[in-house]
């Protein structure tokens, strides 16, 4: 790349209404760490550096104590017992361990796995790999609102089905799948149910018993904890679920995940869960309030704006909107003092628009026009107002530039136009 290429310059550091720039509103990608989490972690880097697996001295015991406290806190947040929590490097590893672990352990019982087309790549690509090894995978479609149809799920289940893996909350559109109902259907048929709850844990109530969850992936950095640490919940009774390890070694985590434990990270995950247990209810109504305010301040001032995914079954901090006739990347470029994501092809490495939005059947053009706003614990009302103003201003400007907007205003039906590139 030539030397005159540079990154987007940041705007003034403080906006007129006192908002500090840039504004971070991409909390589905990752969250900033809560200072209380960092504080809890710090001793485990220096003073309490011991290996939690060192059973014969005080350094090891201190590490182990930190880990076991964390295990209890995580278990409490999701209604599990501490022994059912296995630490991993993050939700991607947890998804891999759950799916591959069940596939190997239960291969005598069957070879069929059910998932959905809108799952995270950590689930989809793991399933694709298993297909190469002779497993059969059903990818359930989703309805217009992003939710799976439970009748589709029932029809897909057969006597060879060993695993259903459906996410609790979608990372792109924030919709909440009917986890309890899915869990019930699986339990009735003796099928193991895994859910990737990366976006859901700490945001919406999860109870592994009430929701009949057998395996559940958890990530720390989506809930104000550190990156590089996560957990897998593995049910121990009613029924006892067994999984084969994918990482072999010293037999840590009851043989399911070898490798020296990331003690500071685990302590951080534990603290993040403890905070969530205390504050989730209050935080959830705060975030839903911010989200609704953002939606109203955008939708009251712009026409042809569409919300992607169910409004009713949705994470409190999640808003994914398509701005018709405006391309997502150019919109991001116009609001370069705001950190959000787009489903536009131009923002991805593959030049393909979001497969999640395509799965909703909205059409590729609306996928190209989508922006994901992810509100989090540290966002403020003033930030929401600033973001809404900037979005409205930029969308209006880009629509003046858009031949599609002009054609639509002239009454041309864009669906009937014969485009040169098709």
């Amino acid at each position, binding site marked *: *790349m*030539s030397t*005159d*290429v*540079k*990154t*987007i*310059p940041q705007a003034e550091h403080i906006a007129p209404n006192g908002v500090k720039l840039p504004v971070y509103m991409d909390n589905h990608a990752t969250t900033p760490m809560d200072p209380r989490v960092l504080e809890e972690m710090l001793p485990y880097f220096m003073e309490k550096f011991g290996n939690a697996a060192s059973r014969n001295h005080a350094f090891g015991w201190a590490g182990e104590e930190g880990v076991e406290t964390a295990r209890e806190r995580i278990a409490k947040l999701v209604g599990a017992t501490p022994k059912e929590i296995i630490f991993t490097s993050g939700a991607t590893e947890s998804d891999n361990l759950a799916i591959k672990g069940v596939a190997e352990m239960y291969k005598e019982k069957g070879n069929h796995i059910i998932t959905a087309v809108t799952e995270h790549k950590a689930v989809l690509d793991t399933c694709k790999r298993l297909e190469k090894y002779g497993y059969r995978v059903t990818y359930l479609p989703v309805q217009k609102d992003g939710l799976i149809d439970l009748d589709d799920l029932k029809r897909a289940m057969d006597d060879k089905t060993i695993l259903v893996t459906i996410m609790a909350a979608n990372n792109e559109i924030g919709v909440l799948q009917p986890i309890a109902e899915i869990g019930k259907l699986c339990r009735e048929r003796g099928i193991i149910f895994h859910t990737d709850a990366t976006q859901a844990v700490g945001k919406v109530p999860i109870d592994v018993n009430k929701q009949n969850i057998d395996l559940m992936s958890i990530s720390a950095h989506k809930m104000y904890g550190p990156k590089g640490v996560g957990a897998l919940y593995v049910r121990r009774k009613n029924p006892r679920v067994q999984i084969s390890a994918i990482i072999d070694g010293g037999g840590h985590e009851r043989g399911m995940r070898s490798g020296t434990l990331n003690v500071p990270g685990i302590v951080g995950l534990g603290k993040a869960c403890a905070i969530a247990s205390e504050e989730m209810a209050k935080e959830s109504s705060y975030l839903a309030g911010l989200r609704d305010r953002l939606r109203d301040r955008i939708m009251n001032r712009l026409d042809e704006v569409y919300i992607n995914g169910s409004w009713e079954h949705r994470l409190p901090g999640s808003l994914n909107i398509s701005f018709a*006739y*405006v*391309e997502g*990347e*150019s919109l991001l*470029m*116009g609001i370069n003092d705001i950190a959000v994501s787009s489903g*536009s*092809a*131009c*923002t991805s490495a593959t*030049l393909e*628009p979001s497969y999640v939005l395509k799965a909703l059947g909205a*059409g*590729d*053009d609306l996928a*190209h026009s989508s922006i994901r706003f992810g509100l989090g614990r540290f966002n403020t009302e003033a930030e929401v107002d600033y973001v809404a103003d900037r979005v409205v201003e930029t969308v209006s400007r880009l629509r*003046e*530039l*858009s*031949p*599609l*907007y*002009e054609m639509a205003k002239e009454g041309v039906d*864009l669906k009937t136009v014969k*485009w*040169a*590139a*098709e």
Partner: protein
Amino acid sequence: MAYSDKVLDHYSNPRNVGSMDKNSTEVGTGLVGAPECGDVMKLQIKVNPQTNIIEDAKFKTFGCGSAIASSSLATEWVKGKTVEEALQIKNTEIVKELSLPPVKIHCSVLAEDAIRAAIHDWKKKQDVAKPAAVAVQ
């Protein structure tokens, strides 16, 4: 995504945004790309029938910053050129001028296509108009 200063400049201050009467015989309109692909460019030229010189050019683009910049630059470059000269503009020159990265080369291709499509449309109009003009004389 890193943008060059020139892309940022065209994005922030696009040149020659607008529309001309697509039914005028002096105006050629090129509409290229598709909404599904994330890029649509409309480029229009107004040609002096005596001199074949492009006297005005306008564009509207749905697409990323590089697509907007490519079409904005294209309108600047075609203005003042004859139709034949404008046909010589190559996408590689747009790539060079805007320092477009490899993933954005398709934007420059689309801009070249838009110029050609606009000229093609104008020429078609002249072919239709000519016999009529002869008849009036």
